[in-house]
């Protein structure tokens, strides 16, 4: 039997008094890379933030099991210590805090840092700049990937690594992510799926209105979304479940 690194069971989540995820179930086996598709506001980033343990994302019911351990109520940094890493889509800029200090938390080896920089073609000068302050879109993505590479986790969550990145940098980022994911597990959010040209993803999921409505081959699902949009998803058997939810909400 394949061992799951992450198991989410019947997870419902509230953010600022609004239910954003409802009854989400997801299993990611060790060594598998999953992709999460969904329109804006469907709950993709919420799922990542909840797995990471951000306090604003309040778990109403369900559980998150990581490496066989219930982490639903663990603080963020303890989840990191267990091997979960996240690359954010829009990380905050923090004045005076240097990227070097964050990388330095995980490794003091100059050689290792140089190696990491090379992998994402990242200028060493940026290590001593205030993190994310005045970084370009590409630099932010690279900085995020650099940080999670340094963390050497077992499960990587990456939120839209291909948004706002030019073709050249996308290639660099895509290859670095693929390299990082060798023998590891991951969950990647993407809108256009450009990053999938460089990453061997195993399973894709579509999330609509806070519920995972279908799962399957990443290539097949992406092709359908790109040709028919998310309207296609409403044709699948899960449609009834969504409609039922909508009716319940409206009433």
């Amino acid at each position: 039997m394949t061992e799951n690194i992450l198991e989410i069971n019947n997870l419902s989540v509230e953010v600022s008094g609004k239910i954003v995820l409802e009854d989400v179930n997801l299993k990611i086996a060790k060594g598998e890379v999953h992709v999460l598709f969904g329109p804006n506001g469907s709950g993709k980033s919420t799922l990542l933030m909840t797995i990471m343990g951000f306090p604003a994302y309040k778990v109403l019911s369900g559980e998150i099991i990581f490496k066989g351990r219930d982490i639903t109520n663990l603080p963020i940094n303890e989840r990191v210590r267990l091997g979960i890493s996240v690359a954010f889509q829009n990380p905050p800029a923090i004045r005076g805090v240097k990227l070097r200090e964050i990388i330095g938390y995980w490794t003091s080896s100059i050689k290792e840092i140089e190696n990491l920089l090379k992998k994402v073609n990242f200028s060493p000068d940026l290590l001593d700049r205030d993190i994310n302050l005045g970084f370009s879109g590409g630099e932010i993505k690279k900085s995020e990937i650099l940080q999670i590479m340094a963390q050497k986790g077992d499960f990587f969550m990456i939120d839209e690594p291909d948004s706002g990145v030019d073709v050249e940098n996308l290639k660099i980022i895509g290859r670095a992510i693929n390299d990082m994911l060798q023998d590891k597990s991951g969950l990647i959010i993407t809108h256009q799926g450009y990053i999938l040209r460089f990453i061997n993803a195993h399973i894709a999921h579509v999330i609509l209105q806070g519920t995972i409505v279908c799962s399957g081959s990443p290539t097949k699902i992406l092709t359908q979304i790109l040709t028919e949009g998310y309207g296609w998803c409403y044709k699948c058997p899960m449609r009834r479940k969504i409609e039922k939810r909508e009716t319940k909400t409206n009433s």
Partner: protein
Amino acid sequence: MSNEKKNREERNEDKLLENFASRLSRKPRKWQACALSNLPDEIIKRAYEVGVVPENSRAATYFQIDHSVISKAIQRTFQGQIEVMSTKEAMKKYDWFKKYWWRLVSKDMDQFTRLAYLKWDHGYFIRILEDQKVTLPLQSCLFVFTDYLNQNVHNVVIAEPGSEAQIITGCAVHPNIHGGLHVGISEFYIKEDAKLTFTMIHAWNRNFDSRPRSAALIGDNATFVSNYLLFQPVKSLQMYPVAYCKGVNSRVEFNNIIYGSGDSRIDVGSKVILQNSEARGEIITRAIATDNAKIYARGLLQGEHEESRAHLECRGLLLSDRAMIYTIPELLAKAQGAELSHEAAVGKIAEEEIYYLMARGFSEKEAASLIVRGFMDISIFGLPKDLEENIKRIVKATAERAL
């Protein structure tokens, strides 16, 4: 609080302090001149906290304890490039010295300038000679050792045309002092094409009052960089140094990092007066208030020439609900075309930043400490490596203590 009420309160407080000052000692013991290494350990240790290191690591050293001048040494390599002595000595030595005396700061400015005028206890005179680029920083230390002492120093710094230098000044008191008042008058003359970087670090204590009064005159193509750092508590500190950008293309930068703790009452600001074309000014202030500290962070940009430009940035971080930060940025344009701008923000540590760092593995406390440390980032000051490392250690300890 209305401005009128606040001004009334300030006047009352200053009156109380003036009365207090009249009861302070004016007759401390006399200290003999000696090498810094011969000073008691507690003084050396405290002086180190404000950036003072052994004489051989600096181009020149001026050290004053209470009313006594301990050291005014210039390293042999820098002889002929700089002059360092007490202002009393300079007054005796040079007739022209009077031209620089009470010229930028008025002796009638307030009761503290009057006090320093009537009861003057040395202070340093530093002169960088024409076209001399002094490669090592100079240092000075004004130390208060005696309990309930009134120390009034008057400093004059002249950067002659084309010269460049960096001065580190530490003002400190013995940690066990129960009360006292330091008044420091400083007049800076940065002549054409000169560049002076002046870094002042204060280490007072919770029973001590301080009233520095400073002004700088900046000539054509000259630059004055003034860095100010305060990490220790103080009973009260009030200063509002002013820089007159009088020359064409004259520049001034004020960088202030103020950490208010305990019951400190800190009223600190910087003024930039732009008086000629291409004059540029910048004020950057970072204020952190914790415990019951009250910080007033002021700033005034005054544009008197149409081709002048200045910016003021003030950020405050509040670490306690009992503390207070009041930022008062002011822009005064007196000429069309003067470009003056400011931005000010005061708040607590952003949760978003904490969680971001926690997602990088830091504990909540470590994350907060890193953010506070980052807030007091001194890497832009361009300090000598040894001083920067020393201050980083102080900042790290301060940030950890703050949380």
